[in-house]
């Protein structure tokens, strides 16, 4: 649990370095923009004015204070405040990410448990081969395929944009597919591992309904390795949205971020990382707390190097 704090510190320091170390001397840029001669005196004056002479920790704390008040600087490319550029796009990305997260988690864990408990030994190899191939399908190819068949050939769903609930179906499926396969594979192997345990045999022997054995004994014990993975997958989905959004013209953060990366617009890149990093750290923290609730033996304070 305590790992969240140093991670938060690291994230903000990383973004601070990213946004402030860029493109030469801000004092010089300011002088050039206002058509003043770059005399040493003026440079020194503006450096002091902008706080560039202060030691790095002081500058970091000042930057952090500004960031907490929603000031992340201005974009190099558009000169607009970074906070504005990101704020107007954040809701669609979070919506898409959360929907895809729900689809991946429910689908992956459900199908994985189903595959493991209703397992036919002869189908093992087939299932494993199929999962390896499914895990190899890139999200953007799946997205193009969905558009080709569902959108263009059969005209079942709208191919781009945002509006009705139908607009989110294809992006959410394309985005969640990869994570769903990963969760499915881990659920399957975790459940197969638990199935060997003595307490599962005992539960069956005392006549507990198979459905209850799966829910109470098998899934609860298999949930531990899954929780950490599910927590991490939330971040993968949020950033994976960058690719999917560009294909479906989804009006989220993706296009802002890609434009920023292509143009090396560091304030926007930093702002995006900060904005996306916070929910990701929160998701990992939640996963840790949930692990502790599932198994009180896991110590929340002991995370660094604790889990080998």
């Amino acid at each position, binding site marked *: 649990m305590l790992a969240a704090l140093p991670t938060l510190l690291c994230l903000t320091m990383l973004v601070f370095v990213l946004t402030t170390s860029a493109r030469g001397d801000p004092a010089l840029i300011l002088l050039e923009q206002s058509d003043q001669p770059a005399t040493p005196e003026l440079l020194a004056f503006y450096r002091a004015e902008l706080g560039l002479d202060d030691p790095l920790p002081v500058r970091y704390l000042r930057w952090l204070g500004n960031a907490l008040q929603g000031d992340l600087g201005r974009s190099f490319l558009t000169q607009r405040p970074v906070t504005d550029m990101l704020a107007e796009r954040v809701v669609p990305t979070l919506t898409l990410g959360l929907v895809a997260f729900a689809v991946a988690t429910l689908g992956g864990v459900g199908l994985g448990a189903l595959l493991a408990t209703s397992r036919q030994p002869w189908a093992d190899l087939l299932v494993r081969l199929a999962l*390896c191939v499914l895990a*190899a399908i890139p999200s953007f190819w799946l997205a193009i395929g969905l558009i080709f068949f569902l959108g263009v050939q059969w005209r079942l769903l709208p191919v781009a944009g945002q509006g009705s609930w139908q607009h989110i179906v294809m992006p959410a499926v394309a985005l969640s597919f990869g994570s769903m396969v990963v969760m499915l594979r881990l659920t399957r192997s975790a459940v197969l591992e638990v199935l060997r345990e003595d307490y599962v045999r005992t539960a069956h022997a005392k006549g507990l309904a198979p459905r209850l054995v799966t829910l109470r004994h098998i899934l609860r014990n298999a949930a531990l390795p899954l929780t950490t993975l599910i927590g991490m997958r939330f971040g993968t989905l949020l950033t994976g949205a960058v690719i999917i959004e560009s294909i479906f013209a989804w009006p989220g953060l993706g296009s802002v971020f890609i434009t920023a990366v292509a143009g090396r617009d*560091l304030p926007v890149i930093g702002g995006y*990382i900060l904005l996306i990093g916070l929910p990701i750290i929160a998701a990992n923290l939640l996963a840790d707390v949930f692990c502790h609730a599932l198994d009180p033996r896991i110590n929340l304070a002991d995370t*660094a190097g604790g889990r080998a």
Partner: protein
Amino acid sequence: MSAQQRLPWEGFVWPGLLVLFVVGVLLAPAFATSDPNAIRMDKRLAAPDAEHLLGTDHLGRDVLLRLLHGGRATLAIGLATVLLSMTLALVVGLVAGYAKGARDVALSGLLDMLLTLPGLLVTLAILGVLGTGTLPLILALIGTAWAGQARLLRAATLAIRNSSYVEAARAIGARQSHILFRHVLPNIVTPLFVLASLELAEVLLVVSALSFLGLGAQPPNADWGVMLAESRSYFAQAPWLMWAPGVCIVLYSALANLAGDSLQTLRDQSLRRI
């Protein structure tokens, strides 16, 4: 209940096919020497036929030629990345796992922190700082990959460090370098290969995704991701443009997944038998 039924043929079939695929793609441009960027406007979007086995694209360029030449660039980037990131991960993993104590806590803490952020985010951030191009791309991919590998290799090293044969070696006064190279290293070769093949699949998917977004290989150079991106505007008239690079990506990364997966399962089985 026994372990999963697994035939030992898998241990060499998938890695063998993967090596064949990689060598084939790397060598093919040596035999197909025509220019993959040659434009023929009279043969735009031609369906597959005897002259163009996989058809032509919107500029009349041969799809098969572009697949082969694009594949070589992508695969070379993948191999370079895996080699370099595995070397870094091996050093860090061995040091953290073998040293224990303060060095281990510091390195593991760093790894845990790095792993909190999703790989794609880190890759894109590094690309944003360094700019686009082959070298920044490889550096960005290494920056993403090494931490996860180092953590797994640390766990593998730790397990072997605590084994009785390492204790015995230390008891008879073997030097640390001897223990590391003769006892620890040979025993983490399998996880090393498993990680390497899974990483090959991962790197291909990320590189194609970046090219697809316009942040990787730049047109007119062929690349599977670029070809997929270009196919989007024409897939109603020319669906083969979408199928050819897509199938190549899936085939290659599925083979790499299968190779890693089968090596892993064979190892699990042999460990269970002990």
